């Protein structure tokens, strides 16, 4: 048992290390853009002594994930003392996000971190920022306009692994339901397609009997799952496209005495989900170190802001997929308190 635990921890650390290598790779790619225009790297911008670089993160709306990114970003930018950073709220409205981007442009920001509400709607603003020489780094949700960098949780492959783990827990057969996000967002498609493809690949005998929208929300997920269970009392698994919805499914399973009979998986890996796994309620989730995701984005931002790299200098957008683990009761203990968000 002890042996197994250390093994898991080693695996976990290995994935993290691999992640760092990926970062290095992405970093290298970032500055070797095979464009036709020469890029001056390391030439500091002609700024007066004591100039501070302005950066800001425009989040979608308050949630555990952007809060943890912001903390990770601050950890990296704060100690540098030449970078100002602030967190701005998009209030779940594209027009607010667009207006905030434009305000940051006129403010002369160096780098904008952005979690776009919509991949298309924010694209014109990103183009505008680029024309003003401002680098944009998107988090989790990519935009259709190419920009400096995109740092995302590994939605597609992570969801494939969730499907494999869930199928294993269900013995390779049965019916599953998906508690989904509202359509119109790329990560919904990635997390759903990955799961469905994963089932096809690893457990072709498992059938998806329901795929319903529960608005990312725990309470809504309870209502939706109750309806699904009425039609499919023999449900063997539930996949919540985020942890909030998976925890809503746990609430229902608890109430109906179905804990242990239904395999419930989430996605994200927030603290509440990890604690639920430790309590033997949630079966598992895809865990990403979101603090680290913020730190990596901030590291790239520092280079972009101070390194004299023009926003328009990228022939190709760099793309970083975060390392992850499928956290279950067997390995959840290896996720350190400092990595929990």
């Amino acid at each position, binding site marked *: 048992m002890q042996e197994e635990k250390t093994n898991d921890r080693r695996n976990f650390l290995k994935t993290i290390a691999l992640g760092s290598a990926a970062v290095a790779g992405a970093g290298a790619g970032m500055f070797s853009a095979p464009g036709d225009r020469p890029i001056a790297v390391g030439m500091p911008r002609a700024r007066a002594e004591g100039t501070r670089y302005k950066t800001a993160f425009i989040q979608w709306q308050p949630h555990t994930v952007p809060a943890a990114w912001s903390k990770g970003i601050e950890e990296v930018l704060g100690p540098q003392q030449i970078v100002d950073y*602030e967190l*701005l*709220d998009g*209030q*779940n*409205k*594209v*027009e607010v996000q*667009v*207006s*905030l981007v*434009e*305000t940051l*442009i*006129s*403010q*002369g920001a160096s780098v904008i971190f952005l979690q776009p*509400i*919509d*991949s*298309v*709607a*924010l*694209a*014109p603003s990103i183009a505008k920022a680029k024309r003003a020489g401002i680098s944009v780094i998107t988090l989790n949700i990519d935009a*259709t306009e190419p920009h400096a960098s995109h740092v995302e949780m590994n939605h597609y492959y992570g969801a494939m692994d969730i499907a494999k783990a869930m199928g294993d827990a269900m013995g390779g057969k049965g019916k599953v339901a998906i508690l989904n996000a*509202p*359509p*119109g*967002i*790329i990560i919904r*498609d990635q997390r759903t397609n990955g799961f469905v493809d994963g089932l096809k690949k690893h457990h072709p005998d498992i059938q998806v009997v329901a795929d319903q929208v529960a608005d990312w929300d725990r309470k809504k997920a309870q209502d939706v799952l109750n309806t699904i269970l009425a039609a499919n009392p023999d449900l063997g698994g539930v996949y919540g496209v985020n942890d909030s919805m998976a925890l809503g499914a746990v609430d229902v399973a608890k109430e109906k005495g179905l804990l242990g009979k239904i395999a419930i998986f989430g996605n994200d890996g927030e603290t509440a989900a990890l604690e639920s796994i430790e309590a033997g309620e949630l079966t598992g989730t895809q865990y990403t170190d979101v603090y680290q995701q913020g730190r990596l984005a901030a590291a790239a931002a520092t280079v972009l802001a101070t390194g004299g790299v023009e926003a328009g200098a990228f022939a190709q957008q760099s793309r970083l997929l975060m390392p992850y683990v499928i956290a279950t009761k067997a390995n959840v203990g290896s996720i350190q308190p400092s990595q929990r968000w």
Partner: protein
Amino acid sequence: MRSASAALALFFAATILLFSLSAPRFASASTVENLMSGFSFVAILAMGQAFPILVRGIDLSIGAIVGLVGMIVFDLSLILHVPGYLILPLALFAGALAGALNGVLVVHLRLQPFIATLATLAAYRGLTYAISGRQLVPGLTTTPIRDPWLTGIETYFDVGRWLGLSRLVNMPWVPLSFVIMLAVFAVLQVLLTSTRFGRDIYATGGNHEAARLAGIRVNGVIITAYALAGLCAAIAALIMVARFTTATEALGAGMELTAIAAAVIGGVSLAGGVGAMFGPALGAFLLGAILIGLTLQGVPQFVQQIITGAILLAAVGYDRLLSVRRQRRLSAPSTAAT
């Protein structure tokens, strides 16, 4: 100019001055440009909202109409490949129709405007989800609208260069949406002050019964007022779709409240019968200037919302004060005569 409009213009000027002195980079061409491009559609919504309020009603559904019209444009363009020059009139018609339906509910079912438009808010938003091309055809989620008739609305004019002013100062480029806003303002203001319909609006808002007795077709006036609000929502939707190159199901959510706030700040009395177009339009830009200014100052957004609320309260209080004075003035000569 009514004293309320004068007070608003003064307050607007003071706000601009204050931010110019205190907020870094507020007094810049790009801020003016952002204000024009980011709040012209809010001003159009606020002017539209003024009509139901002028006839003692309110329209809570205009944000939902924005979403519905946006999605109709999305579907027509990306799924049915209808050319943009046909989509523009269809979108305006759809908005006016949705607005007129509000008016019909208020007039013929005798529903409270608040309840009627709360119901259509839910219905129009639901309909938006039902017809969403993003759900019917998943690949469209990442497909921008490229029809030049639609995206052309997001155009900027280098007015400073035309006027030869760019050599002297850094002039903002003027977005087409701002020009559209000015045109809407001019048309609606003329409609209100120089036509029979305008006089009927004020009469109906002042006193329904008296207006009816004076031979005004009150029902028709009220339905038209709501239709105008819907039409303005459609214009705003077109501007937003051009700006974002797409429509989302949630487009315009909550904007009815911003529009109502701008209208009330702009001196449109919730008691009906008092107000014009200048106030709501300026009210929208005032809210915009405050949001941009406070963001530039680094004031957290929840504080911005508190300040917006406080300004709204002050505006309502000022409106109340003016209407009390008005009543006193009206009653003064009659008491002197007796």
